[in-house]
């Protein structure tokens, strides 16, 4: 089974080498491809210096467009499974096996690694927690299955899921929306616990007003996805 690890990276020069090292040490069975989403720093040069495969996008497409590029590449190169793993260092390569395990057991098309299912839990601001809970309730109700971590970018995709997402992948809130679209398509969705670290570099700029505004926009996006025609 050929596995491709898709690492979307936008201006991650501080963390990209650590991510590549972590993946090589703790998940050597997967090939790595870095999707450099039009970074203006040294992300691409650093990754190439480490001998990693890097797809340089000519301009910034956003996380959705970057991950979708990974699906297109994976399909072109005949990979059976794709794994999405953030380039900012918040995901832990040692956790991949747990998510892959669930993937194999459930015959799922999309497995989401959830920080809220892991034993150590996850500490974050009130706004984030509240937002995550509301999103989880809405998405779970829509797909008829409990999804605790809707915004997690730690995911495993089957070839069927890749084929679907290579064609349509949401751009605005890709993590949340892709779960809804996958459900509409009839893909099997599952969740597995995955520990994550907090962000190592940079800081979150979320305020209450922004959080509320974000929630309204995500809800609208979900509504639109629900009435969207997919084939």
């Amino acid at each position, binding site marked *: 089974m050929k596995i491709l690890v898709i690492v979307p990276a936008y201006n991650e020069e501080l963390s990209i080498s650590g991510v590549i090292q972590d993946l090589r040490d703790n998940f050597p069975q997967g090939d790595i*491809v870095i999707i450099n989403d039009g970074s203006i720093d040294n992300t691409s040069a650093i990754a190439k210096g480490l001998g990693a495969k890097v797809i340089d*996008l000519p301009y910034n497409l956003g996380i959705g467009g970057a991950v979708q590029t990974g699906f297109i590449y994976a399909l072109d190169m005949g990979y059976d499974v794709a794994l999405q793993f953030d380039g900012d260092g918040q995901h832990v390569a040692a956790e991949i096996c747990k998510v892959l395990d669930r993937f194999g057991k459930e015959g799922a098309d999309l497995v989401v690694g959830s920080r809220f299912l892991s034993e150590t839990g996850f500490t974050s601001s009130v706004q984030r927690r509240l937002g995550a809970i509301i999103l989880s309730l809405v998405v779970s109700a829509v797909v008829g299955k409990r999804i605790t971590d809707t915004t997690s970018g730690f995911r495993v995709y089957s070839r069927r899921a890749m084929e679907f997402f290579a064609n349509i992948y949401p751009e605005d809130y890709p993590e949340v929306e892709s779960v809804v679209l996958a459900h509409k398509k009839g893909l099997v969705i599952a969740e597995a616990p995955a520990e994550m670290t907090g962000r190592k570099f940079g800081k979150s700029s979320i305020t209450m007003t922004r959080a509320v505004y974000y929630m309204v926009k995500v809800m609208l996006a979900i509504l639109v996805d629900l009435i969207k025609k997919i084939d």
Partner: protein
Amino acid sequence: MPVDIVQIVSISVSVSILVAVIELVRRNHLKERYSLIWLATAVVLIVFSVWRTLLHTIAGKLGIYYPPSFLFLLAICFLLVLLLHFSTIISSLSENNKRLAQEIGVLKIRLEAIENTAETRQGVTE
């Protein structure tokens, strides 16, 4: 029906629009498929400026007291449709543009891989 200055001006403006649209299409500055809506507009304008009582008749039938406001209504509706049409074009252009960027990225890395193997092979034969 006496021909007055207003009519001469409106007819010449409408005809100029028609000529301008045809000329743009002829010089390949405007695609045929986007020109239809403009050609139709020019024709409607010409009809209204030649046959002036038509505007009054239609406005009267619709219960519009002041006939020129019927013209404004038409213009606003037309602009709304046109803007919506443009929005759909922009959406499909940006989708195509994204697709091209993605394909270029994938092609570049695959090309590099081919070049690398070619170089190593060359190194072996030398």
